């Protein structure tokens, strides 16, 4: 439209900064300077007011249009059937979760440093800790870590503090996405990590005991480990047993406390949190109460106020960096409050029956699919005892299988060729209808070696 630019005002006025140039002028005069520039005179002159090469301001309408086009370049589960898991899972999120967590009282409050005006967040965190304790059947839980992998790494660091040792054994097939993070976070600590399978460890009685054993249950390939073996492992030495698990699995299967785990961590995302390309998520972190003073992260505790009324506060804060600084249990500060709240509301909604039902539903669907795939020529099921995720081997490279599936509006499984030749990891949840599963099987049956 010719001349449209004329409606722009000359002086930029942000919608987010309310003070107009006229008001600012008055404030500057109260401060006793002529220009805002005087307020930046502490910056060395040579480097003051550099050119900032950024795009011009954009209106809400224009930006929404532009970014929705960019968003639409992605293939979105929902438009596609998706069988991708490997640590992040697509589960149904009831409407209430978003509605509650969008309340500005929850969304736009900060860390509850002032408990008298933060009881909403604190009480919700207490519910979260309680539910995580029930889910994992452990005695204490914190208010959440960044994600499942950093929870696992912090668990390793914690076990090394508890046992005052620098040796860690990772047992069996733990997700490389997790071991990578454990490696990063321990690289400067002198912690030595070794990888072994459980049989070797149970047979070996010579080596010095490590600070901890780290297992994943079910493991990266979906395999559920034998509980009696895990009991033996937890009784071996004085090493702590760290279990990396998954919340939907924990809803149905024997809990890690059954085989005497010391620390249980998990990715909380499957419970009410969108996939969002990998984050933000919330890491669950629970343990035996003996280790409470070595816990990383925020913890909410119950107490009473000066009028004897029950209330909640952040507690055991001396563990944390803002007090103990270089001697803190972790450097973590920003938490995952809002994400933990999503999982809290999710667990409240599904409740005792819902979680049991949903986990069994995932079980039935995935076992239905696995049996059918195993019957396809050239395909073979690679996981024996599994819950909702299992590995298969394909007759041709996974990349090619997935390309074919994508052409047919399916996001296939995760490529695990470096574990199993032509291996694919498939996750099946309540989001995958029988129709979708049958369609996947039909398409896979068309995949044949050249």
């Amino acid at each position, binding site marked *: 439209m010719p001349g449209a630019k004329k409606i722009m005002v000359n002086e930029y006025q942000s919608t987010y900064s309310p*003070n107009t140039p006229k008001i600012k002028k008055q404030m500057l005069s109260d401060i006793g300077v002529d220009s*805002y520039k005087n307020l930046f005179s*502490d910056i060395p002159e040579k480097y003051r007011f550099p050119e900032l090469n*950024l795009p011009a*301001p954009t209106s809400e309408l224009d930006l929404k249009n532009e970014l929705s086009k960019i968003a639409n370049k992605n293939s979105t589960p929902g438009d596609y059937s998706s069988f991708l898991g490997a640590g*992040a899972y697509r589960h149904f999120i009831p409407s209430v979760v978003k509605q509650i967590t969008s309340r500005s009282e929850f969304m736009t409050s900060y860390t509850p440093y*002032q408990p008298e005006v933060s009881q909403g967040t604190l009480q919700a965190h207490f519910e979260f800790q309680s539910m995580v304790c029930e889910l994992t059947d452990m005695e204490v839980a914190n208010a959440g870590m960044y994600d499942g992998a950093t929870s696992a790494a912090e668990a390793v660091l914690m076990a090394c503090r508890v046992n005052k040792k620098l040796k860690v054994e990772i047992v069996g097939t733990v997700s490389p996405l997790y071991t990578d993070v454990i490696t990063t976070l321990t690289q400067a600590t002198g912690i030595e990590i070794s990888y072994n399978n459980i049989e070797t460890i149970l047979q070996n009685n010579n080596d010095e005991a490590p600070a901890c054993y780290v297992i994943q249950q079910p493991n990266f390939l979906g395999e559920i480990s034998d509980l009696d073996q895990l009991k033996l492992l937890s009784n071996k030495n004085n090493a702590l047993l760290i279990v990396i698990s998954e919340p939907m699995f924990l809803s149905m299967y024997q809990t890690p406390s059954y085989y005497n785990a010391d620390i249980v961590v998990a990715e909380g995302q499957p419970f009410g949190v969108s996939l969002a390309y990998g984050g933000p998520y919330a890491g669950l972190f629970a343990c035996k109460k003996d280790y409470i003073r070595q816990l990383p992260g925020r913890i909410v505790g119950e107490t*009473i106020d000066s009028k004897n009324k029950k209330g909640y506060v952040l507690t055991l804060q001396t563990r944390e960096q803002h007090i103990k600084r270089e001697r803190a249990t972790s450097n973590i500060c920003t938490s995952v409050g809002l994400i933990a709240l999503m999982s809290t509301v999710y667990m409240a909604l599904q409740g005792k029956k819902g979680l049991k039902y949903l986990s069994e539903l995932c079980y039935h669907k995935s076992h239905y699919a696995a049996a059918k795939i195993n019957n396809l020529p050239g395909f073979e099921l690679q996981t024996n005892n599994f819950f909702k995720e299992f590995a298969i081997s394909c007759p041709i490279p996974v990349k090619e299988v997935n390309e074919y599936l994508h052409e047919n509006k399916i996001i296939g499984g995760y490529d695990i060729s470096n574990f199993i030749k032509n291996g694919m990891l498939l996750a099946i949840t309540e989001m995958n209808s029988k129709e979708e599963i049958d369609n996947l099987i039909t398409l896979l049956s068309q995949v044949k070696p050249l």
Partner: protein
Amino acid sequence: MKNSNIRKLLMDRSIEGKVGATMPSIDVPLQTLPNKKFLRENLAMPEVSENEIVRYFSSISQMNFSIDHNFYPLGSCTMKYNPKLNDDIAGFPGFNEIHPLQNIDTIQGALEIMFDLQNILAEITGMSGTSLAPMAGAEAELAGMLMIRAYHRNREDFKRKKVIIPDSAHGTNPASAVMAGFEVISIPTDTNGNTDLEALKNVVDASTAGLMLTQPSTLGLFDTNILEVVKIINSNGGLIYGDGANLNAILGKVKPGEIGFDLVHSNLHKTFTQPHGGGGPGAGAIMVSDKLIDFLPDPIVTKDKIDKFDLSKPQKSIGKMGAFHGNFGALVRAYSYIRTLGKEGINNISEDAVINANYLRIKLKDTLDLPYDRICSHEVVFSAKTIKEKYGVNALDIAKRLIDYDIHPPTMYFPLIVEEALLVEPTETESKETLDEFIETVKTICEEAKTNPNLLHNAPHNTPNTRLNEALAARNPKLNWRNTIEEAN
């Protein structure tokens, strides 16, 4: 809240048989379940109906103070307005529902946003490379410290085991440095609030790996010794890490990379807004100069000649900071924020934040002590030392009394080096009218300190709880349903 039931926890509301969500139908033939010994017997989750759950969470939410409610001048935390547009954009299905392990060809839109954000942050900070992998400021600090370690080791210089940190720093700085294997050397702040140069010279030697500096500092002051500091560290072969927690004070006014910082992080959730959600989640981008690019955390987003984006691992990367690629949802919000404001708006942030803080400084300097009487940046540190000596009312009492006037307290007792500190950060999104109201309120409270100190000692008066017994909570921790207090009425 009149509903006296509000404090009743979900488990105490549970009645057998109630359901809170509908269950999808089973459309596949039932499969044989595993042997019972593999299954758990009981899952003690509450049974509450949907309406009751909605009402419960809505009710408890109302016990919170939030930025959408009123002024939240929590120093060092940058509690500014969170634009709603950002949440909508992050909620686009094409961003919100994509899986982190999807094939690269199917997530080009997501990578495009990340690539653009990497470049924008490098431009704003005057750096050469960015990784968006860290999931919070402290994780970015850790990444930065690990990079400094890797850099020196790569040069086969294994002696550099110390990191120097001023005593005014956030606690995350020393904690992160220790996680990266360094010994922390704390140095004092001089009487003007700058780095004490003599003290710095005394501790710098061939074992110095680097310096962590918050600029402007947690005292809300831009260190006028900065060029000297850079010279001292650089000439000894150390690197300079900039804690960008207070980046909002200098956006467009100076680029840390240009004055000699080798690394700087941004708490995207603060400077570039993200609903704080009761303490998180956040996102912590790390920006570095040329010589550190190869050490950046995994991944970074790269673009090839045919404009295809990819996730890449830098050659000598310190590794992965989380299972996936950073807090993408927070990155989208930061990106949306930056694009909305653009060049003019970003420049305005620092200008407006600094005007607001200095306005409070001038207007309240006769009411509270001002330990550093000079132009401040985006926040100003006051002290209640005189009031405490005169009337026995401390910073905590003043903070709690503000609650009675429906204003969130400033940060108290931080920085640790200021006695009875009250660190006030108004942010750029507050109007002069709001600031004037705050000024009047603080004056009223300081008057009350003289005339009726008990009003302050017992504040706040109208909150769901009065002051809580934190000692009791820590001595005998009750951390879940299984272990709660019987209310004494």
